[in-house]
């Protein structure tokens, strides 16, 4: 397949993913809007107004906006690819792609692109909702943008690997419940890691979501608990490692070819 054909194939996979996201928008876009509105009402307005400034000059509701956006990006990019790709496996229509000349890396790129686009859509929705509760000035647009893209890619790749190994729908649901939710809640969404005592502060540094949330918070609010360079290194490191793992699994046909 030549480069033009590969581009067509990539566009086909990505477009099919976006069509799916929009077709079932009540399952893909609406839940985050409702959940995050509740977070803003409860943690931002009701409780947050009594907490005061968590960092000097930054109100609690402003502080949690980046974290809540990242929480939505993480769960949606992961959930999009794991459920969509596992459904394709479960319904066997993944064979349409596997028996085609399309290389595995194009298939992976198409699915990741779909997940990144959903992450982006949800980020925009949550950001728009946040504007009903507070006023946020974006300080570093490129950091904000690149953090959303890199975080989406990391969790899309993780979701893809999960879907490759999954044999039943329960296997796809386990990781978000027992891994993603704790990682995001303990990833500095609602608090500054500086508030933690030893050893929890040191342990928190092993959580990759902490770096993503803080990089994004730097982009939006110009504050971060973590050095920006380290945050990018962590995100890029995960992108590289998970990409290599996903491609290796695809090449071996793990979970796909007998």
């Amino acid at each position: 397949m030549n480069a033009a054909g590969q581009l067509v194939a990539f566009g086909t996979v990505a477009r099919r993913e976006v069509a799916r996201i929009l077709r079932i928008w009540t399952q893909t876009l609406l839940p985050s809007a409702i959940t995050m509105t509740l977070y803003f009402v409860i943690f931002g307005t009701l409780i947050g107004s009594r907490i005061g400034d968590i960092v000097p000059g930054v109100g609690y509701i402003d502080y949690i906006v980046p974290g809540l956006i990242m929480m939505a990006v993480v769960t949606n990019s992961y959930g999009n690819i794991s459920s969509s790709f596992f459904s394709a496996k479960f319904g066997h229509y993944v064979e349409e792609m596997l028996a085609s000349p399309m290389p595995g890396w194009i298939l992976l790129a198409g699915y990741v692109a779909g997940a990144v686009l959903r992450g982006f859509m949800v980020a925009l929705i949550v950001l728009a909702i946040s504007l009903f509760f507070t006023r946020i000035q974006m300080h570093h647009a490129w950091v904000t943008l690149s953090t959303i893209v890199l975080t989406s890619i990391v969790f899309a790749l993780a979701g893809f690997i999960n879907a490759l190994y999954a044999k039943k729908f329960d296997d796809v649901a386990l990781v978000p419940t027992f891994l993603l939710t704790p990682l995001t809640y303990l990833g500095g969404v609602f608090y500054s890691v500086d508030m933690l005592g030893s050893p929890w502060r040191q342990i928190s540094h092993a959580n990759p979501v902490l770096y993503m949330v803080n990089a994004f918070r730097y982009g939006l609010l110009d504050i971060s608990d973590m050095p920006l360079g380290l945050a990018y290194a962590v995100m890029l490191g995960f992108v590289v490692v998970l990409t290599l793992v996903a491609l290796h699994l695809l090449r071996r046909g793990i979970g796909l070819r007998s």
Partner: protein
Amino acid sequence: MSDHPALDIVELSKTYASGVQALRGVSLRVEPGDFFALLGPNGAGKSTLIGILSSLVNATAGDARVFGVSVRERRSEAMALLGLVPQEVNLNQFEKPLDICINQAGFYGIPRAVALPRAQTYLRQLQLWDKAQQPVRTLSGGMKRRLMIARAMMSEPRLLVLDEPTAGVDIEIRRSMWKFISAINRAGTTVILTTHYLEEAEQLCRNIAIIDHGRIIEHSSMKKLLAKLDIETLVLDLAEPHAAVLPQLPGIELHAVDPLTLEATVPRGHDLNSLFAALTLAGIVVRSLRNKSNRLEELFVRLVEGGKAVA
């Protein structure tokens, strides 16, 4: 590339992780333009073989070449030459037939501008155009089977592999599918067909292979294979229940199926007059006479059961 066979399978073996040996050194050659039947009982290895051809199953040993291109070494190029209609319906139930066809073309790198008119052509030819915008889940079983053929044709493959395409389809739709596939074959596409409807294989295919327990047990032209059949079984419907003792006839084996039905196994070329004379003498009145099964079915059963009667 034109000098190469459409399909050249050499010593293909597959042992699953469970230890099941699905294929045991299968070698097979299908010439370009052929309409080839691959038959075998359930679990014989047909679907594994097709799985390897379409790169959905990894071979343990051996290789398959599609028009000279190795599936193992040059998967992408080989897949560009091959179209697959799988045995199980593997359509996204929430998508529409038109989208499925256009997406399928996209996976082969065919742009939408080319795919759209092509999808229209094949969906019309397979009488699905009026359903093009309806979700697949609303289509009947026969429509889904036809859609899988339209989908496979989107890349206009040189080799089309159909794994039981007419399973569970009523005779009228089956005939329309035969017509479509025959036209595709006449236009130059090599077709490999697996089916449990043996009259389908007999009518459509020029060459045949029979696989059993992971081995090819017969590989020849349909004509030659059918010529090997040296007996036929006749079913005799009687006017009245027959007597307990049936007449004995040299060269003809006669046995009762039920009080009103007899079966006579007759060597080819043997005259039937002696049979009817003996039946008349025994006071047995035959109301009607028919062949028990088609010829290929007879051969198939005997080959698979390991019968020695085939010369």
